[in-house]
């Protein structure tokens, strides 16, 4: 009974109010994405989910679904753009996958593999981003931040704490925490916070549990993110707001 749009030639049904991304995931179609998370209001900043709607490129996570749209996603032209975006994110921060405890569970890394990003593409910027190890139980490694704002949204919208925010502008934009000292230990963050669970990369880490998952058994070892993300996405909008297996949760 519900209306549909076309995604790469397949009809996709949607509910009123759904975006192209939400409807696609619910119908079992994967569109690459980073800053989109099924539990939060679409953000539209990473642009990995860029698709062509009636020939025009738009972010599918913020594009309202409409009957009769012709959406293209799985085409080389768009995947080439996505590869460059992933390269940009790698070049912008300091990502050393072999020594990162999020390796194998990292969305950025998984996207890199899935989109077949084989080269660096850009000269890396090597920004100076000191760690914050002040908190007894939580480590912040800003080197890996991709500025998706998921922790900002989780802490503000779910935890009601506003522990995180973005500071600065342009390429100098960076994550900060809510304390006069600027240190995480002086905030009211708790291990049980939603903000602890949503980081898609290795910025917000629980101390003393790193590398506890053997290589081969990590999240993206067996299945690529394109398959994993479909398992994670709620097939129907979950009224309780619960998400059994959200991305980025190790």
């Amino acid at each position: 009974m519900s209306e549909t749009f076309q995604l790469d030639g397949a009809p996709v049904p949607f509910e009123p109010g759904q975006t192209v991304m939400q409807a696609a995931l619910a119908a079992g179609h994967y569109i690459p994405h980073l800053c989109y998370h099924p539990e939060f209001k679409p953000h539209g900043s990473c642009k990995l989910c860029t698709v062509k709607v009636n020939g025009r490129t738009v972010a599918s996570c913020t594009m309202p679904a409409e009957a009769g749209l012709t959406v293209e996603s799985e085409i080389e032209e768009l995947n080439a753009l996505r590869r460059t975006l992933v390269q940009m994110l790698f070049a912008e921060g300091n990502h050393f996958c072999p020594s990162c405890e999020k390796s194998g569970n990292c969305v950025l890394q998984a996207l890199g593999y899935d989109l077949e990003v084989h080269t660096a593409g850009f000269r890396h910027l090597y920004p100076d981003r000191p760690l914050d190890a002040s908190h007894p139980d939580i480590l912040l490694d800003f080197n890996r931040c991709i500025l998706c704002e998921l922790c900002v949204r989780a802490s503000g919208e779910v935890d009601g704490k506003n522990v995180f925010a973005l500071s600065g502008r342009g390429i100098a934009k960076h994550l900060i925490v809510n304390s006069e000292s600027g240190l995480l230990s002086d905030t009211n963050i708790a291990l049980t916070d939603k903000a602890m669970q949503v980081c898609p990369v290795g910025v917000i880490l629980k101390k003393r549990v790193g590398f506890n998952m053997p290589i081969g058994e990590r999240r993206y070892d067996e299945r690529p993110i394109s398959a994993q993300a479909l398992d994670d996405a709620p097939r129907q909008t979950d009224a309780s707001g619960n998400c059994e297996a959200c991305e980025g949760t190790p």
Partner: protein
Amino acid sequence: MLPDNELRFDASRQIWLDQLVARHQTDASRLLQILREVQEYFGHIPQPAISRLAEKLSIPRVRIESVGSFYSFLHLKPHGEYRVLFSDNITDRMLGSEALMQQMCQQLWLQPGKVSEDGLVSISPTSCTGMCDQGPALLVNGRAITRLTHQRVQEIAQLIRNRTPLNNWPSDFFHVDDNIRRSGLLLDNTLAPGDVLRKALSLGGQKIVEAVKTSALRGRGGAGFPTGLKWEACRNAQGSEHYVVCNADEGEPGTFKDRVLLTRQADLVFEGMTLCALAVGSKKGFLYLRGEYRYMLEPLQAVLQRRRDNNLLGAKILGQSGFDFDIDIHLGAGAYICGEESALIESLEGKRGVPRSRPPFPVTHGYMQQPTAVDNVETFCQAALALHMGAEKYRAIGTEKSTGSKLISVSGDCAYPGIYEYPFGVSVREILQECGAVNTRAVQVSGPSGVCVGESEFGRKLGFEDIPTAGAFMVFDDSRDMFEVARNYVHFFAHESCGFCTPCRVGTSMLKQTMDKIAAGHGTKYDLNEIENLDSVLQNTSHCGLGRTACNPVLHTLKHFRPAYENKLKSLMFSPAFDLDGSLARARQMTGRDDAGAHLKEEI
């Protein structure tokens, strides 16, 4: 100067801060305006002030830091008692601004971008300050100084060294000329305040909208959206309030016509806004004035007060019961992106100036998510004129799809830089002749995000049919290196990217890196391909117009002036991005050596 955490935050400062918050009705949506005043009072935004504001406004302190760090003119750390910002538009550079900045740095013993050891002064470049017709220009503690010369820079350095208060500096330093070279319909108007509103009141809202539609007026900010349709959509949109916003965040490098309009025609601007209020049913309007034009705040507030006194603003305007409207002026604080209407609205709400995802559009979900009509300064003037003279008569001026007149801000290599008003449809060549430009190589129309027009295209016409323009017209003669022009614009976009989306945040920096690499003589053909690749990503995936147009200056100059690039390339297909000799620069600086032995020989 004491380090920030030791800055005494005594009772008197706290009282001042509390009074400031009270003056802003303890309203967190006025955060940017509050921070701007804190910046003016303390010279920066001290940490204890942030904590106090967070407490008084009941918002997390992290939000205040987040907003404060977004705007170039706000500083979260001490940034000198005197904060000098040299306008860094290409037109300032062509008038010698780089040497002048270097001179001032030497005289005051400091490096650009850094605060002097004694905390007295900082000197940095800033994006175009809108004084291109009388540059080189700078801002000192937010106040504009024009027509810099070596002597004037020397005098300024002396005044700073002597800690002379800004109010005691020679007043001619701060003089800003209007430089009106050619006037027309708009600049020649002899309307008295209230003339347009009296006529409008006899028509009523619906007929005003019809008249503006009939006039075929299109927005003067560059995009050219039909003003009548915008007003109609806003009028018809459901909302508890409707808002009128005048976009005076004239940030496009090379544009300064709104500065002149707000100096010479402030009444007409406000009359146009009030007309719009009548058309869309609004009680509240905002003028968003770019921070660079801070010096206009008091004069503009005086005009608003006079209009209130004359019953042209406030309750029952011109005695019409139910026609209540007032205007508040908000100042920006150094962010080009706030010229984008949804970013401007975010900034008006006291947030970071990040463009919103659209739809919904501001006409239905604008300021405070209510229907909002955002128009350019000149658009409001033109709307008022069109209504007064009659839509049909107005429509006869200009061209079919671009009706009325347009103010052009002319700067660069010409004898008479300044403001020129033409009916739409004027050719590039006609303007060049009138402004006294000779041996012209190219014109950048509508600023870095516009188009670069080469000699073969000087017959092209300004208007939405051919070259749409927000008004900038920067002239370059045959002595100019168009590569350097493009490189200046690329630096501008990288500096002004808000950083929200990946392609623009990283892509503009990568583009800057590539252009700098070519400028340093390390570029290869690979880099030109790389520019085209970046352009594709920026154009197709950017969140807003800034990212989508950031490659334009490079692509346009490449099209017309490819040799300017190719001459700088190594004639190799590939060359390592790593510059072995360049990497020793720091070691040379530390050892104070620059002799031949301290340099590596060219390897290949």
